[in-house]
């Protein structure tokens, strides 16, 4: 059984990269968030097809001096926080459909 997690950006958001940050606004309640440089890398890689673990291994650990297990733990905390605000959808399977719902797909 796979314990991989997949993360996909919600389609019900507004987002734009500004310098080394990303602005994200929830269409649900118009709350504005900013993602820092590392979070932006995860955000941009959140295509629903790439496991979070692979994003961390291939995009974070290759660019930043951080242990994979710590990076993955941080990344999981980040995407769970984003999911709580409806900015991303999480699933234990690849996400192929456009996603507008809150929280976690099972």
């Amino acid at each position: 059984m796979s314990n991989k997690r997949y993360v996909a950006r919600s389609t019900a958001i507004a987002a734009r990269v500004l310098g080394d940050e990303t602005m994200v606004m929830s269409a649900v309640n118009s709350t504005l968030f900013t993602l820092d440089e590392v979070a932006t890398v995860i955000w941009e890689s959140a295509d629903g097809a790439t496991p979070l673990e692979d994003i961390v291994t291939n995009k974070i650990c290759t660019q930043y001096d951080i242990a994979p297990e710590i990076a993955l733990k941080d990344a999981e905390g980040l995407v769970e926080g984003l999911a709580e605000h409806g900015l991303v959808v999480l699933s234990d399977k690849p996400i192929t459909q456009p996603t507008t719902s809150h929280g976690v797909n099972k």
Partner: protein
Amino acid sequence: MSDLFLEMTAKALKLNVPISAHLDLTYRCNERCVHCYLDHHDHGEMTTAEIKDLLDQMAEAGVFYLTISGGEIMMRRDFFEILEHARLRTFCIKLKTNGILIRKQEADRIKALGVESVQVSIYSHIPEVHDAITKLPGSLVQSIEAMRRLRAHGIQITIANVLMVQNVNDFEGVRALAAELGAKFTMDPTITPMMDGDRAVLDLNVDEAKLREVFRNQSLILEPIEEVCAPPLGPGEEDMDQLPCSAGHTACYVSPYGDVYPCVQFPLPSGNVRQMKFIDIWRDSPQLNEVRGITLRDMPSCSKCTHGVTCTRCPGLAYMEGNMRGPSYQDCEKSFARTGIPSENLKARKASSLPRHSVQLVQIQGLQPAAGSMTAQAMESSQLSA
């Protein structure tokens, strides 16, 4: 405005990113509002493909907040195709509409496309007053019905109430309507000249006494009245590098014909997206760069005026009066109504006995494709004076 919004805007300013853009899809409209500044004829609107390409360019340039307006946006048969494309480009989208063409199906699609908010102009809670301003019988009822449909979907609504002589006593009623609908309420007491240079419309501006009454109505103003209406201290040296507003700095306007201006109220032609890339206009337009270079220090009258820091001076209105570094007479009047203290400009006018609105006017115009001139024409306002 949230701290985060201000922080992001400051960052956009530093990076020279147009974080906000206002795009008018059309000047055509199904209403004929008495105070409207637009020419409602179609003089060659951008095609669907041109607008989609522009949206791609805007997203690439960093535009985040996108206001889609008109005219009446729903007059474009391709409106939802454009909106869908804007959604794909992940803009934070605000629509301005009168709502008359928004039925259930349209409300459903607006909801599905994740529009952040919709602004509807309501002039009065009294149908006869509102409809006389829009010149469209039944328009108030239809606009309210549209707002109810949108609210039923949880879409954020803002009612914009433009104050003029016809509806001067109705803003409390409109605000109550907004509360009933669960909508935000904003009021603007400024009527601007028409695109063709006609200033007769300025006669619709409310008089000074009413303006004073509005500014002293605590229920309309967030800050304590005593602070808002207090005599200003005047600018100090530390204020001299202050920028006038976001126009041309972090925001711009694009007309249905592709003309780029610093702001919808600042008709300085700065380029056309049919001739140049949006980002090249934004970065290299001599006109936008001139606007960016102006600080309070560069404004001969305003930098010496006691209202220099607290005034709501609109550089676009100042430009339309003939000098983007000069004062805006309408804002001088507002500062006076608010504080009872005349601006330097008003004092000078009083000394020269110039009548109200007898100022030079710059006519709004787009770029002429063949001429290549980017200079706005000045025209005498002799036939236009109030």
